[in-house]
């Protein structure tokens, strides 16, 4: 057994391994993030430079893109659109969290008639292609007179229509021992008090995950505002951005990039601050479920 020659080499195996891994990760990572770097850099360039070179560091950084882009080529500034977005997203998130927690509590703890069937229906809504519901929902909201308002965008959230979030919270609740809740009942709480005073604080990480995900999804939502909103003054950022690339031919791309950066800024900041919750939210659904 000629082990002598193999001895020294094998010691360095972990090092070679790490080297290759880092190489791959850095390479792929750089390629992946380049469009983002370029976008941010381009927002600070003047229009000509964007098309001049693929480098992302501006040679003469300027705030031109931002100041002009903010005014937009419409009668409203970007501030209006940002505000509109918040008017949609914030109610959506709040209603989602409340309804998801309440419904999840029902599923996770109570002996409800037809529980299995209802749970199956909940799971079905996760996989259901939403495009098949689009038109009838539109017609329904038209009947209500809710077209060109924000109501169709967030009212449904009050009814826990996003099965994925309910599922997330159910899983979290199931992993909690019932003891604390039993103790609270003996201390005189009714079930709602148990939910708000005892359970909610403990499942806070899950609630935060739900809130963050819904925030992100709502920020990115395009189709819903597209079909329900017709007045430009009510447009959220998503529609305003689309409009900006439709409208002009000789587009000032640096302005568009600047506005794109602003559009993504809330999501970016939130992501960096609360990464942990994003990751745990996705994985707890997958690995435990």
């Amino acid at each position, binding site marked *: *057994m000629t082990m002598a020659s193999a001895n020294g080499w094998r010691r360095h195996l972990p090092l070679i391994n790490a080297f290759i891994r880092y190489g791959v990760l850095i390479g792929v990572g750089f390629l992946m993030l380049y469009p983002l770097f370029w976008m941010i850099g381009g927002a600070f360039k003047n229009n000509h430079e964007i098309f001049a070179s693929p480098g992302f560091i501006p040679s003469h950084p300027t705030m031109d893109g931002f100041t002009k882009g903010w005014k937009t080529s419409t009668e409203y500034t970007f501030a209006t659109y940002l505000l509109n977005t918040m008017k949609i997203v914030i109610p959506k998130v709040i209603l989602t969290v409340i309804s998801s927690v309440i419904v999840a509590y029902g599923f996770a703890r109570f002996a409800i008639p037809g529980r299995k069937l209802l749970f199956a229906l909940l799971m079905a809504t996760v996989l259901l292609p939403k495009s098949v519901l689009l038109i009838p929902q539109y017609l329904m909201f038209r009947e209500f007179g809710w077209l060109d308002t924000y109501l169709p965008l967030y009212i449904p959230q009050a009814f826990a229509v996003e099965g994925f979030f309910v599922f997330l919270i159910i899983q979290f609740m199931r992993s909690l021992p019932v003891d604390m809740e039993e103790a609270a009942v003996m201390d005189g709480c009714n079930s709602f008090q148990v939910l708000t005073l005892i359970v909610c604080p403990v499942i806070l990480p899950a609630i935060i995950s739900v809130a963050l995900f819904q925030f992100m999804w709502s920020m990115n939502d395009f189709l819903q505002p597209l079909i329900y909103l017709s007045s430009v003054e009510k447009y959220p950022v998503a529609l305003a951005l689309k409009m900006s690339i439709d409208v002009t031919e000789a587009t000032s791309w640096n302005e568009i990039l600047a506005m794109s950066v602003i559009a993504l800024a809330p999501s970016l900041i939130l992501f960096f601050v609360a990464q942990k919750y994003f990751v745990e939210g996705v994985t707890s659904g997958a690995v435990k479920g």
Partner: protein
Amino acid sequence: MNTSSVILDQVTKSFNGHDVIKGVSLEVKKGELVVFVGPSGCGKSTLLRLIAGLETPTSGKIEIAGENVTYAHPSKRGVAMVFQSYALYPHMTVEDNIGFALRIKGMPRAEIKLKVRAVAETLQLGHLLHRLPKALSGGQRQRVAIGRAMVREPDVFLFDEPLSNLDASLRGQMRVEIAGLHARLGATSVYVTHDQVEAMTLADKIVVLNGGRIEQAGPPMELYRRPANLFVATFIGSPGMNILPVKLAGAERDRVTVTTAQGPITLPRVNARVVAGAEASLGLRPESLSLTTAGKGQLSGYVNLIERLGGETFAYVALKGFDAPPVIVRLDGEAELRIHDEVHLAIDGQRTHLFSADGLALGHAPDVKAAS
């Protein structure tokens, strides 16, 4: 053909600058079952993993069956391991689990089947070959883990606390089975445990480890009768040895006198190097103390607590004047005794132990045929 299966020569291991193994040298003879035992963190599992090749030593040499395997790949050392968690492949049947290594080696299917079946028969797993691990009980899974090691016919078997995941009654059963298996196969084995009962009952040789160093190595009875230091003395044996603080008075050729809170005691002792006036520890195992009448015993005290186990009784006696916890005395199951009784204890001189202030044994009792 050498008679040693495993030789460790000045092996050290550091993790991030922290020394876990501080220079260990030992020999495992062919056919021996050697047990590494010690408290948590003593390095016994690390030592096993070094032998297995799952870690490489920072310095030192490891030889298995005459070959230098210090940096060899685990699969090329002639070792097989039974993991604490069994590490059974959950998606493979018992048959596939046991035969996995043979399949990797490229053995023909028919031959694998024969060997696997033979091993399964020996371990009474024959009727479970097509089951998945999740459908097996703890004891059955453990036997599959053993079978997986056996089928490879290694030079050395390695066991990493194999019984610690089982409940108490099953543990006793499996201990007997492992002992029986070793007797039948005569395979060289290194066995790690924190349970000194397993160590005492299974080992041909025990290696007591503490803080990365060997405290003492030898046959179980030698460690029991002649512990080399306080650590081994108190680690081996259950209930543990009673330790009393004493002062050395003087020594003659075959005896030593110590002064205690209850007066002087003379013990038969050979080869003891005594410095008069020095602090020392007197070690008395529960079975070396017995009840006697006033005036005939060397120690007296009051009964604190009585534990009756049916076949034997342990009495906790607070000795008068001693600044020490109560001594445990082993008595017959029928012993008539009550709490707060005053008792007098006689010491069996042949079964005493004396340790210097550094914890090292001072000489030894004269009679014993030293187990070797």
